[in-house]
């Protein structure tokens, strides 16, 4: 920790980001400006909210053991000296990219999302001035035009990740590139949800117990999509699965993308079809 301020960023910067976060929590789903230049959004937010007693978990694509997750965890262990964990239940702050843990989060936890593109309308309306006006007037017909086009062309909404949501019946929001499978977890979540987009200079938030609704049509209701298999290792049928090619003959293994969830289940004695093989080898 020598030579660094606590959690790396200086106190002025952290204070400024916290001020942005407080405003963001006060207006659920509304995008706040965030100055550019202190690293990726997720890390800035985590650095600003970490306290000495916090226990940090970092996941990337659901896994605790990927390069990004390991590096960020090690970074904060080194610069803030906070305890780290891979167990969802033990963490007080969870920084994530692309997933929400399977285990239901609690009121005493905060989840921090890394966001590459905070503007849900950016592919549809090229002008930022115009999208700001659309948010200001809650004029979101265009987003439904995109859903309409999907149904007309493919018979269903083809957005599988970063599926747009309405927050608190007011702001259209990008949930970050989590699978649509995770969208329902955001609705009335007991934990505070913070979003940081460093490159795009935006912060936004969802306070605990806030309505988050995935956009849909009355006659084409929102539904989640998942691989129609149980997890090969732990046998879970209700978790989001990754497809892994395991040999040169194209054999596939479907496993929980949430590694902690899978490990926890296996420790509790659940075994999937391929889990036996693994044990036997």
């Amino acid at each position, binding site marked *: 920790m020598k030579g660094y301020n606590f959690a790396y960023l200086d106190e002025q910067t952290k204070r400024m980001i916290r001020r942005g976060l407080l405003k963001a929590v006060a207006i659920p789903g509304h995008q706040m400006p965030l100055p550019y230049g202190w690293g990726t959004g997720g890390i800035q937010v985590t650095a600003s909210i970490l306290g000495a007693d916090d226990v940090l978990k970092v996941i990337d694509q659901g896994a605790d053991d990927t390069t990004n997750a390991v590096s960020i965890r090690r970074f904060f262990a080194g610069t803030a000296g906070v305890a780290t964990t891979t167990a969802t239940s033990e963490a007080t702050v969870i920084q994530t990219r692309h997933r929400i843990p399977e285990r239901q989060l609690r009121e005493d936890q905060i989840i921090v999302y890394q966001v590459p593109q905070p503007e849900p309308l950016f592919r549809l309306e090229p002008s930022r001035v115009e999208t700001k006006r659309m948010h*200001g*007037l809650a*004029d*979101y*017909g*265009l987003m*439904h*035009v995109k859903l*309409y*086009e999907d*149904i*007309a*062309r493919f018979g269903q909404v083809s957005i599988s990740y970063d599926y747009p949501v309405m927050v608190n019946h007011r702001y259209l929001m990008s949930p970050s590139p989590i699978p649509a499978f995770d969208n329902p977890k955001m609705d009335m979540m007991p934990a505070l949800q913070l979003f940081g987009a460093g490159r795009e200079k935006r912060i936004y938030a969802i306070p605990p117990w806030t309505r988050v609704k995935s956009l*849909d*049509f*009355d*006659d*084409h209701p929102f539904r989640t999509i998942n691989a129609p298999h149980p997890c090969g290792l732990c046998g879970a049928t209700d978790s989001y699965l990754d497809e892994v090619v395991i040999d040169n003959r194209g054999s596939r293994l479907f496993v929980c993308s949430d590694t902690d969830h899978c490990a926890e289940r296996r420790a509790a004695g659940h075994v999937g079809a391929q889990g036996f093989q693994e044990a036997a080898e």
Partner: protein
Amino acid sequence: MTEPTLLSGRGLNLNFGELSALANVDVDLWPGEILAIVGESGSGKTTLLNVLSGRTAPDSGMVWYRDPSGHLHDVHAMPAPSLRTLHRSDWGFVHQDPRQNLRMGVSAGGNVGERLMAQGVRHYGAIRSAALDWLAQVEIDENRIDDLPRTFSGGMLQRLQIARTLVTHPRLVFMDEPTGGLDVSVQARLLDLIRSLVTRLNIAVVLVTHDIAVARLLAHRIAVMQRGRIVETGLTDQVLDDPRHPYTQLLVSSVLNA
């Protein structure tokens, strides 16, 4: 006429630097009426249309709109969200260039359905059938519903723009040279279509055109503009058959067989 007006402009003035684009202009429009604003280019027709529709603020003067419940609204004092809502529901705008209004990367059906979705319609089947219905009304083949507008001809694009505008049954539509840039036979069919649609749906129209023939075919009343002023106004036949102002006489006499 004793019926209250739908839209009224009083004492409208607007200068662009030295140039007087609008000079003390008064306009009245009654429900279901088609008013043509004619004049040569640079006479202030389009500026007047923009001021009446709230898109450009005048230097002085007022524009009043009466909503369906009879309340009067000062168009230029309205909060931006209300004006936008008005433009998306009660009002419509048809541009000379349909590409300005259409979304060229969105299918014909999506273009027609957008205003419905902006109004909060959330039933895909209902939006789809409204789009099919409107494509039929503007004589676009139903099996083109999922095609992109860029595969459409100029006349089809203009008809698609009209369907997109009328799908929410507006009470008032502003049209800026809707037949400009189309060849004569396409123009004639389009004029026919516009006339039958606005008559059937009882839509009031403010129509800007430099083409006296278009005004004669469509409009109930005509206002003739010259250098920012309305120099003559009256019933279409009256103005065109018996023009009083020298400028109107010049305009009318310059059109063959008019």
